[in-house]
């Protein structure tokens, strides 16, 4: 076990875990930040998407000893109460069905818009293609991203 100091959602955390532990399980099991979801464990579905210094990464294959000083942002860190423009757009379009993948979808969308504030349809599809929605809410997700662009 090793002690790691992590900066998550602008707060400092300390955890004592095996260095091979993925950030996903540090968040969920050790810090009770349950918004980041476990879907596949091999970066195939995007449910566990978080930001490392603003860039979208899959936390299920991001090991805690690789984080260093980088700032982690999770869905809980986007806003206090759903005020982030992307979250608001999601609510406006009532996107979720089961809802399980949506925090990962939102984190990917936020990272996309941070880099590219006015993406084309094709750029949205490319950026979001790693996030599976088993319920098939893709058309609403795309509409919500466009709403967020315009807000």
């Amino acid at each position, binding site marked *: 076990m090793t002690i790691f100091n992590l900066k998550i959602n602008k707060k400092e955390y300390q955890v004592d875990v095996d260095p091979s*532990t993925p950030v996903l399980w540090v968040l969920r099991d050790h810090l009770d930040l*349950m918004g980041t979801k*476990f879907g*596949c464990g091999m970066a195939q579905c995007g*449910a566990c998407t978080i930001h490392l210094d603003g860039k979208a990464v899959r936390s299920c294959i991001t090991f805690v000893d690789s984080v260093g000083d980088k700032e982690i942002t999770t869905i809980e860190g986007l806003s206090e109460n759903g005020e982030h423009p992307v979250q608001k757009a999601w*609510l406006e379009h009532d996107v979720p069905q089961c809802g*399980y993948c949506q925090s990962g979808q939102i984190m990917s969308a936020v990272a996309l818009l941070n880099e590219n504030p006015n993406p084309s349809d094709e750029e949205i599809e490319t950026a979001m293609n790693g996030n*599976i929605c088993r319920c*098939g809410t*893709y058309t609403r997700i795309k509409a919500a991203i466009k709403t967020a662009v315009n807000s």
Partner: protein
Amino acid sequence: MTLVKTTYNRRSFFKTSLAAGGGLLIGFNWLASACTSDTPKGLVIPDEWFDVNAYLKIGENGVVTILSPNPEIGQNVKTSMPMIVAEELNVDWKNVIVEQAPLNTKKYTRQLAGGSDSIRTTWTALRTAGASACYMLKKAAADAWSVPVEEVTTELGVIHHKGSGKKAGYGEFASAAAAVPVPEEVELKDLKDFRIVGNSQKNVDGLGIVTGKPLFGLDYKVDGMLTAMIVHPPAFGMTLKSFDASDVKTMPGIKDVFALKVYNDDYARQWCDTSSFTELVAVVGNSTWEVMMAKLMLNVEWEPFAEQKYAAAGWGGNTQDVTVPGGLESTTEHKKKMIAEAAKSARVVRKDGNPEEAFKKAAKIIERTYTAPFLAHSPMEPMNFFADVKEDSAVLVGPIQSPEYMAKTVADRLGFPLEKVEVQMTRMGGGFGRRLYGHFMVEVALISQKMKAPVKLVYSREDEMTAGIYRPMYHAIYRAALDADNKLTAFHVKMGGIPESALHANRFPAGALDNYLAESWSIESNISVGAMRAPASNFNAAAEQSFLDELAEEMGVDPIQFRLDLLKRAQENPVGENNDYDAARYAGVLELVREKSGWDTDSQGKHRGVSAYFCHRSYVAQVLDIVMENGEPKVDHVYNAVDCGIVVNPDAAVNMTEGSVVDGIGTAMYGELTFNNGEPEQSNFDGYRLIRHAEAPRKIDVAFVENKIHPTGLGEPPYPPVMAALANALYKATGTRYYHQPFVKNTFEV
């Protein structure tokens, strides 16, 4: 106005306090978070609640909590069911909080997520619950004001008496209403007076979802909870031989490793107790990652079994022995067996007229074969469940579609009376039928009992995808006889599957044809299967509606008109008596989609396919447009016409239809699980293909038939037909007919 008796679900109206049990045993915040909806903006939580009946409680300030009885799987019943109660209660939806009810079969009608039946089977019970409570509020006020109850009216949470000018909020009379005797019968609203039902309301968990609140089973947690995972055989046809856990038990954070027997030998399994792997190894530890690591290191030996037998409880109390064949099965073998079996004559399920004779006389016979592979449900949230089993009672919390059945299985296995097993339902990260089969609840209960501690069982994606339950593998041969005038004279379907057939012998076009033959066959297997979204229909529609398209082309008629002509016959002069569809409603959705898609006016230069299907008591017709881009087909636009009776929550119903369309396209294009020596060859989303963003249609339109028919299913009906609409449009775009799923392969070659 409709009068309904309250008696049939009278137990719902006894004012016993709702089971708050979970809160006593388990961390309050986690449960509250998982079960309670978003609190509408500006709403003040009351200091005191008064239970009016099992479906609702009213606070002293007039805020209402409505309990949603059925499991929420993404079909949005946690919003739509309370809407129905709120409608009859006549309360402002902005003053409503929703709570997931725990399992309580004494109080609620049917706590099951399956068969697209949540709304249909509870519609009257939910309305009655709201209407009874509304009456009790009026009666309490009438008694206090000394006026006749008939003169008292309600308006959005306010009680009025016009004559005296008296007025009060529901909160003022909540306490008194709770003491009013439950009326023998109550009046239900006229549909034209509805103002919540039929108007889109947002998902009550929407804010919780987009802010990452712990709503799901996997998010559930209590102090001192251990985490467990299971190891199951790598292949169907194998069972546990031995294991050596000596190295693993000393790994950091690992508490115990032991074998687990899911069912007792003399237990008669219920329908929901399907699972191939009943002898497992459990690994228990402090955290998920530690258990995952230990699991990888565990040395387990498996051995093939010759044959297994178990007792299955049938409907009506009959028990029968089920034999599971031994052997390590492969997809190549499956295909060979299917081809051989389909060449034989099979069990005749329905025969109208003299189809043999008609085929003999035919000027032309068209015969086509359709196939579809095994599928893994793959809900995004892997299987998981929490259990805290004490000496003589158990609390289980998690995502389950069939809680009322699984509680019985768990009670039996633990040797507890049923009332000692409490089940709380969390929001589910999808299910699609997978969560009807709750062996994981038994597994976690046994692990908790052994560990004498609260335990959460977590399946990895690989555990889930390789352990069953699957959609069966299907095969169908369709034949049509045409006479010299190119008129359809006979129709023959021979359908089979591993391990079961998908035949619905009494569905369209049965009933529309003088000479009709339906046959069925199946091949046994040790691969466990279960219901997946629109069971059987999810193959039927794809095959049948593709065949009808090809038939219409062969006959030189418009594919919509071809279907409408058949339906006209079925309506005016039906053949046989057991036709399970309403030909007029079926035709209705075809006519609506023809209009909405501009089929007659706007098809020039478009690659479009049409399809229509009836299942789960609803009717859906679709027109799907493909555009060719860089030589590749791309689904551009899908038009849906849906008849599911009264639409409770329109935008959510549109969302459900959109999702079904995307899911259906994904299934038909990409879905395939194959086997080699009993081992599933895909174990995660790298090998098992689900549809992704870039493959979804650009636009999906949904139109509903407006009628006053009580609501029927929607979670499943739009899913099956789109597969054929896709196949038919692909043919227009590419000139190739798509007979074999997944369409990216379109082959059944061995």
